């Protein structure tokens, strides 16, 4: 992520006059956060590695060393861990593949509709953004009701408009993804739209004027001016949206509970089940590391965008 510079940046910091008695000063400023950083970011990684190679039983003070057993479980066909981990990882991947393009394309579409002045623009912006401020359990319960098997709004509308039988969305494999995906798009579209609107505001109008003087059609202007200039923001939106989608948890937990028969269970939900419901802390920690390794693709992308911002500007 990057930050708009409010002031012209002075190139290099002039070295403050060396004053011996103040040499500790910067470190004292860093200390409070550094302590928390070591305690809650660095230490848990090492502690987690330790837990994952032992059999962690809260009731048993002796934590037996088991080496890579819990990692190997994930690659041993037939163990529930292997079955459910890969199954729920696929579920999560499926959700990401379906929702990310929707969340990019629809957000860009809304931003294009809204970036030129129009009557009621502020109102429309607020309407599209507002669902995003709801907390996940509110959003989840609402969409569970919208897609209720019998008389949710969707089935009610089908009854009124099409005189059609209700569809049991929530308890049909495959269809159970519909409320989760639709609800998520409704919920998070406004964030991406806002990012696109900000980026569109930065496209110089003179480019369009020049293009139209040269006889460019609106489509050509869009294709050859708008889209290329939106590439950086699109990369950013893609990375953050994919990252958020891969961490699917609350929506499916509240809307379907992960069902029917784990068909919408996300990998994070499964890891928490293994850890907190089954008290298999070591196994869950190993899964956390395995899944974390996969997520690194996206978090590294996010990091490189931020790093570019630190160095560039």
């Amino acid at each position: 992520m990057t930050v708009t510079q409010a002031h012209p940046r002075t190139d290099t910091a002039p070295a403050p006059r060396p004053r011996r008695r103040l040499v500790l000063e910067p470190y004292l400023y860093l200390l409070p956060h550094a302590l928390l950083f070591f305690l809650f970011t660095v230490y848990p990684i090492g502690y987690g590695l330790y837990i994952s190679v032992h059999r962690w039983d809260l009731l048993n003070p002796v934590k037996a060393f088991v080496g890579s057993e819990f990692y190997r479980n994930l690659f041993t066909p037939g163990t529930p861990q292997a079955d459910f981990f890969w199954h729920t990882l696929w579920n999560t991947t499926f959700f990401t593949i379906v929702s990310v393009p929707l969340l990019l394309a629809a957000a860009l579409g809304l931003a294009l509709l809204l970036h030129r002045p129009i009557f009621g623009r502020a109102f429309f912006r607020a309407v599209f953004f507002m669902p995003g401020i709801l907390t996940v359990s509110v959003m989840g319960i609402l969409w569970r009701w919208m897609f209720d098997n019998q008389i949710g709004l969707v089935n009610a509308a089908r009854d009124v408009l099409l005189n059609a039988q209700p569809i049991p969305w929530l308890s049909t494999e495959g269809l159970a993804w519909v409320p989760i995906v639709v609800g998520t798009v409704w919920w998070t579209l406004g964030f991406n739209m806002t990012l696109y609107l900000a980026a569109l505001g930065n496209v110089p109008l003179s480019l369009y004027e020049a293009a139209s003087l040269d006889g460019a059609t609106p489509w050509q202007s869009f294709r050859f001016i708008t889209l290329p200039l939106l590439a950086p923001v699109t990369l950013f939106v893609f990375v953050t949206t994919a990252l958020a989608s891969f961490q699917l948890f609350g929506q499916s937990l509240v809307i379907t509970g992960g069902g029917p028969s784990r068909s919408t269970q996300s990998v994070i939900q499964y890891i928490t089940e293994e850890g907190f419901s089954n008290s298999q802390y070591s196994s869950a920690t190993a899964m956390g590391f395995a899944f974390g390794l996969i997520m690194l693709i996206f978090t590294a992308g996010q990091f490189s965008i931020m790093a570019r911002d630190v160095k560039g500007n």
Partner: protein
Amino acid sequence: MPRDLPRFVLLCVLSVIFLAPVYWMLSTSLKSEADAISLPVQWIPTHPTFDNYREILTSPDGNILRWTGNSLYVALAFTVLHVALCALTAYPLARMRFPGRNGWFWLILSSMMIPGIVTLIPTYIMMLNFGWINSYHALIWPGLSGVFGVFLLRQFFVGIPRELEEAARLDGANSLLILWRIILPLSIPALATLAVFAFMGSWNNFLWPLYTVTDVDKMTLPVGITTFSQRYVTEYGKLMAATTLAAVPALIAYLIAQRFLEAGLSTTGLKE
């Protein structure tokens, strides 16, 4: 304007679609359970009633006002501490020269690559060891190790002209005074953005409090609401009254902070 008419109509249609779930939530919350599931569907409640609200507000299974208060306390405490910690850390990283500055900055920045799921279980076991399960400490302290705010403020602090600081230094101001009197007042927009994000992040936090605070009286709002979801299952009148009540503080906060939130999203996004 007539050229814009199709665009305007399209926006109106989309707005109706976006608002429909919210209208449905309000409408259902005002119906008896029988009316809520009756066919043909009642778009407007025929016998509007506040019974659901009364029942939710006096529910013996959980106090939604208390959950709101809990969430408010946790989110405020977290926000104040987080902004203070980030400012203290970003200040020397942006404005001082000392051995290890860049190394430390890149080290904490690269920790953003560690997905939260990696530290979830180990941190939970730490909470068990600390005796912090069912304590707000668990909801406040671990999150304070976050570094995005450090990055955000550092980027902003770097851009503040040095002349102001030099002048104050010649007048004998120490670094703490410079931070307090010069850097922070000039950074209000960045601080407000960070505060809004920190507050929203803490308020909406779901997974972590779901497992660390299981005592009904101590739950935060998002987690508390799910206990209603399990208790009332398909009694949607009551559920919608509960979700409406839970949405109200967020809506009020949004109306107050809208400016900072949207400006913050734009500036923390891509400058282009």
